[in-house]
């Protein structure tokens, strides 16, 4: 009798828990809107949506290079398996052609698709939930007026049991803070605008904030650096390793132009970001810079002092010289193997007198040399900076055919010692070998510099 009672209580508890979970996880389907794809929108609304889509960098994930823009299918590697981005062109069958605005608003707000399925947070709705209904309306207008493309994304390839989407309801319960941000009246208008852009569509934290074991951003380490597509997204808080600290002006210039004379060129996935940001007005770029530099805070006096010395060396009107590889042949004898290679192969550009973005950045100014993880500098040495397609851009030749793993490690160890006060990097040879072999996967994209979307993601223009 007693045993039976226990069983009944247990079963009831399980049923209740399952019911509660179902209630929590269940989302209704929003009926298909047959007229959605044919709807017309005010041109101003579509134009505004285009800007917002550029800010959101939507095209980068929702396009396979060489395929039509926004048609999805790009493999997004995660620690939990591969997720394929969806087709967000207005195709009825394979895209969002049947989505009403309501369905689109819900996807942005809650991370739920039209059919009521939870979306994986690879779609950064933890940020997009901050976007206003008005901006979502403009984005919707822009996407629904793109050419419809029939393209089905491959099935996601995720670890068991993550294919089971209702589990995402539990993830959301733990990590998802829904809705727009409360206004902070103590801050300036530019800061507030910047926070809206950065926290919302800009989703900077998606790469620049590290993630916890469940793939959620660790808000306690806000902007302290993360990873994207095999590249390190640097710390953009007080831990930034830029030798000359970023300020509003330099950050705005970098975001506007894709390079800055004290920081070098944007590359890897950031090249897409700066390329896309060209669609935004200066005021928004400045607002982003205002907000992000407020997170970085003022540099310590020692850092400020060092930066002042560097500025003196690298600022001002020095005569630009078209240096060449023979202008200063430095004898390679005597030094360490790394030093010999650096002086013979790297210094002619990186210590030349050619200005950014076309000259090599002097490593006294390099964040990469000071970064805790050498991945980015390994990527650039091995794969170079491929030129932008059909436009002027920074370019660096790859060295993977010329340098062995040991040689790359030697050069980098030398550079770390000479140009940084940080500890030596550990495990360089292995890291270089894994990067070269593809065991550590790196996405190689053309530089930005001057080039602009949609070309910079290789999308076919739509």
């Amino acid at each position: 009798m007693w045993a039976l009672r226990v069983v009944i209580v247990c079963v009831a508890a399980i049923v209740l828990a399952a019911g509660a979970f179902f209630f929590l996880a269940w989302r209704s389907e929003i009926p298909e809107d047959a007229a959605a794809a044919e709807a017309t929108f005010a041109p101003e609304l579509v134009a505004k949506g285009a800007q917002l889509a550029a800010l959101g960098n939507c095209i980068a994930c929702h396009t396979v290079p060489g395929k039509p823009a926004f048609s999805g299918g790009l493999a997004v590697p995660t620690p939990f398996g591969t997720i394929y981005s969806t087709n967000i062109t207005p195709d009825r069958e394979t895209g969002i052609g049947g989505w009403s605005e309501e369905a689109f608003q819900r996807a942005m707000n809650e991370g739920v698709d039209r059919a009521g399925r939870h979306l994986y947070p690879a779609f950064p709705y933890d940020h997009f939930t901050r976007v206003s209904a008005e901006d979502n309306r403009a984005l919707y207008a822009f996407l629904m007026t793109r050419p419809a493309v029939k393209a089905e994304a491959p099935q996601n390839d995720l670890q068991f049991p993550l294919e089971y989407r209702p589990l995402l309801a539990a993830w959301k319960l733990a990590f998802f803070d829904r809705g727009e941000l409360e206004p902070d009246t103590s801050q300036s208008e530019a800061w507030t605008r910047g926070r809206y852009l950065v926290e919302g569509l800009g989703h900077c934290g998606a790469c620049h904030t590290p993630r916890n074991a469940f793939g959620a951003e660790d808000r306690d380490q806000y902007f302290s650096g993360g990873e994207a597509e095999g590249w390190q997204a640097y710390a953009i808080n007080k831990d930034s390793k830029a030798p000359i600290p970023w300020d509003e002006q330099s950050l705005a210039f970098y975001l506007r132009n894709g390079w800055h004379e004290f920081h070098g060129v944007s590359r890897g996935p950031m090249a897409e970001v700066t390329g896309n940001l060209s669609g935004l007005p200066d005021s928004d770029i400045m607002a982003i810079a205002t907000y992000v530099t407020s997170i970085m805070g003022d540099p310590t006096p020692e850092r400020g002092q060092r930066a002042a010395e560097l500025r003196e060396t690298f600022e001002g009107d020095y005569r630009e010289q078209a240096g060449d590889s023979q202008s200063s042949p430095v004898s390679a004898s005597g030094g360490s193997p790394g030093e010999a290679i650096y002086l013979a192969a790297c210094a002619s550009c990186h210590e030349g007198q050619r200005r950014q973005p076309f000259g090599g950045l002097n490593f006294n100014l390099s964040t990469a040399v000071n970064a805790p993880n050498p991945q980015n500098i390994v990527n650039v040495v091995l794969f170079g900076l491929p030129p932008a397609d059909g436009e002027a851009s920074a370019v660096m030749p790859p060295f993977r055919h010329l340098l062995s793993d040991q040689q790359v490690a030697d050069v980098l160890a030398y550079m770390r010692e000479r140009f940084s006060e940080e500890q030596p990097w550990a495990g360089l040879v292995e890291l270089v070998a894994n990067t070269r072999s593809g065991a550590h996967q790196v996405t190689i994209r053309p530089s930005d510099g001057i080039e602009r979307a949609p070309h910079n993601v290789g999308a076919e223009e739509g």
Partner: protein
Amino acid sequence: MSISLTVNGRPHQVDVDPATPLLYVLRDDLALNGAKYGCGLGQCGSCTVVVDGEAVLSCMVPVMLLEGREITTIEGLGTIEEPGPLQQAFIELQAAQCGYCIPGMMMSAHALLRRNARPSDAEIREALATNLCRCGTHMRILAAIRRAGELMQAASLPKADKGRAG
């Protein structure tokens, strides 16, 4: 300091500073003047040669990195009397105007065709992205590289097949 280099299958001993870029050794010490000095910064591609099958910018590569490696320059692709398929195709399609960039173009194309005899136009453009031409003969260069791919394939077909095809 004496450095041993293998260029176009032939061993050479050169007495140079090991930091000297390969281009200078090719032109000044080995009298192989095919590879050209363009920008000296690894940005124009006119100095391109092939090292162990990969296109490499010889103006940037110190010779100290090249001991024991197979270097191929345009002189290794054929002779005036017996031009190789790439050279033949570039002549056939008159792909050169001033010709300064052409050795680099051909060496980049050589590296590409070695691994892919039938490249698409997109693949050719990608492989030659760092080879600049100021005369604007790009369309003929593209055509010549496609043609060279055909010539190479035809040459590698067994005789019997060739007979049937012909």
